[in-house]
């Protein structure tokens, strides 16, 4: 009897714990989702274009979206710029990081350790410091202002080898004997890289492509600098950000929200589809340090 009673209270306790858990989870979900709901709601607000207390628009409409695609606004230009940048960056950056990671994972050469240490140390310098120098270098090559798009691609991509950690962590888990077997089978290192290693890296490949595709969408500082006022070279983050300056926020805040939604949607769809790979990459990266 006593045991039965005990087990009953156990199951009761479990139900309570679970209920509490669900409530907490529900709350968490609301907290995390709500800002995006507000953002979406605000993007349909045509009653007040500035910051408001109420999240329910006083008047509904698509005016803010219409504005984005109207000729008054360079949003489309910014968007396409960013899209092109992201496209190139995700391809080239992935290739660069793989080259670096594969080398450091599979070859043992004299400068390997020094190279890794140097990259570690370089990573400790705050990046913004060098912005003005990068601008001058790009200017020397003629990739600022109207030509900022290729210039930005170049800068995003050039040092991307330094972000090899996650991929190397993954490659380190692939048994070395695969390389050796291929060596014995008559492959040279390049063939091993292309025919054996790369096909095995699908998850981390997707992760790298995904993260490097997402990167350029968020850069509002450097892109703003490099474009030097040229609309032809501006990216979407810098453009949207300029709408929130004290002088503009009153009339452009809802435009910002609508622009934010348009930027977020494709990235988000891509992300939700490839979530599995992202999670794998993040976890792997963190555990490997």
């Amino acid at each position, binding site marked *: 009897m006593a045991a039965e009673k005990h087990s009953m209270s156990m199951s009761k306790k479990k139900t309570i714990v679970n209920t509490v858990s669900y409530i907490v989870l529900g709350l968490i979900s609301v907290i995390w989702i709500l800002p995006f709901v507000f953002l979406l709601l605000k993007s349909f607000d045509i009653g007040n274009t500035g910051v408001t207390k109420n999240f329910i628009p006083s008047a509904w409409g698509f005016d803010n979206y219409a504005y984005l695609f109207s000729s008054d606004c360079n949003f489309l230009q910014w968007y396409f710029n960013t899209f092109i940048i992201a496209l190139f960056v995700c391809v080239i950056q992935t290739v660069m990081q793989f080259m670096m990671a594969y080398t450091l994972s599979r070859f043992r050469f004299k400068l390997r350790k020094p190279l890794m240490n140097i990259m570690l140390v370089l990573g400790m310098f705050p990046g913004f410091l060098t912005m003005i120098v990068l601008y001058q270098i790009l200017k020397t090559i003629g990739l600022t202002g109207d030509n900022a798009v290729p210039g930005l691609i170049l800068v995003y991509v050039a040092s991307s080898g330094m972000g090899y950690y996650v991929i190397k962590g993954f490659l380190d888990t692939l048994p070395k004997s695969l390389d050796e*077997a291929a060596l014995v089978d008559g492959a040279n290192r390049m063939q091993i890289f292309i025919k054996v290693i790369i096909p*095995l890296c699908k998850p981390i490949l997707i992760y790298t492509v995904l993260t490097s595709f997402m990167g350029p969408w968020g850069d509002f500082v450097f892109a703003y600098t490099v474009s030097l006022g040229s609309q032809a070279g501006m990216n979407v983050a810098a453009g949207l950000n300029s709408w929130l300056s004290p002088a503009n926020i009153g009339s452009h805040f809802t435009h910002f929200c609508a622009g934010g939604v348009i930027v977020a949607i494709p990235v988000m769809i891509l992300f939700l589809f490839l979530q599995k790979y992202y999670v794998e990459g993040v976890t792997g990266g963190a555990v490997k340090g």
Partner: protein
Amino acid sequence: MARVVLKDVKKIYPGNVEVVHKFNLDIKDKEFIVFVGPSGCGKSTTLRMVAGLEEISAGTVEIDGEVVNDLQPKDRHISMVFQNYALYPHLTVYENMAFPLRLDKKVRVVDGKEQKGYTNDQIYERVTSAAKVLGITQYLTRKPKALSGGQRQRVAIGRAMVKDCKVFLMDEPLSNLDAKLRNQMRAEIILLRKRINTTFIYVTHDQTEAMTLGDRIVCLKDGYIMQVGSPSELFDMPANLFVAQFIGAPMMNTAECELLKEGAKYYVNPFGHKLVVDGDKAKALKDRGIESRKIILGVRPEHIQLAKKGSANSIPVEILVNEMMGSEYHLHVQTEDGTKLVVRIPTINLSEEERKEMVMGSKINIVFEGKAMHFFDPENERNLLVDEIYGPEAMQLELEAEAKAKANAEANEVPEEPAKEEVKAEEPIEEPKEDIAEK
């Protein structure tokens, strides 16, 4: 189809860690040679040096008369099977096996016609026939993930087989398999060897595999060769205590005691008992003119028998543990002076009553014959009855000889002659190896 010669091969890792010391070995054409030893003995490293997966720090490796030190693995005409199979997970079994063939772009003459690499048909031909031999035809379209361990190992072997190679290297190919499968695969490897008929180098830490597979066994420890010889040589005449204990299971029993020469007869006195040495062993001792001395006595568990109480030379012991292995008992026993021994008794010869006696704490008597005894020098652990010197000691002698030769060369006006002498002095060390190789 090639002789493999390792000359003074060394492996030195960064930080001056020498893991393989002056490895000398001449592997004959079509010989099946097994490297065996505990982990960290350098056996895999040596194999990988032959394969070209590790750089050779010093010395040379010759395959078929060609020094291959600077050749890439693919140019060494070798095939290799890895411990963890190393199958390409993204390729099907068929493509895994075809991989080396597809990569081969050498110009060769087939049916009187010159061609580059292999045609698709030829690849199909080779892969399917190899698969047939290994019994994996039905798995050709599968990915390695969908195979069991044994099947994967067959694929790995198949991949090595399809290629024309001079030397077939196997690096602990069976150690990832369970015991039953291992026995089965062992037998298959023997059959495979007959079919391929080429030079094999096989690395294992398992002495059973070494004994069953090898024409010759190279027993290694800490990067030194401890003995080279046929399985029976290693078993019957271990050159040193290490080989004696490594080969054979359970391990050889040892006891420190004295060898006594009394007149023409030899005795040993382990555990306070005086036992006579007779047969070949006594003769050998006599031939070598060995006097009374301290020794380590070695007796293999299977060479110890049960004895009736009070019978000649019998030793009373107490049973500590009895492991029933089915066909035999492994008795862990303790002598009166506390020495622990292992005794292997076939159950088939035991009566019901005797079996009942084999329990913990019961006292029994054991006996072993003189011909089953091995005598080792406590100082250097060498077998008193074997002349060859292996291991660090051999190396030491060699180095000393070299140093002497050098010193002489510097001291003498005519450097050539004394050096030659010294080289001769070295020969007794080297020659026996050659002898064995030629047997």
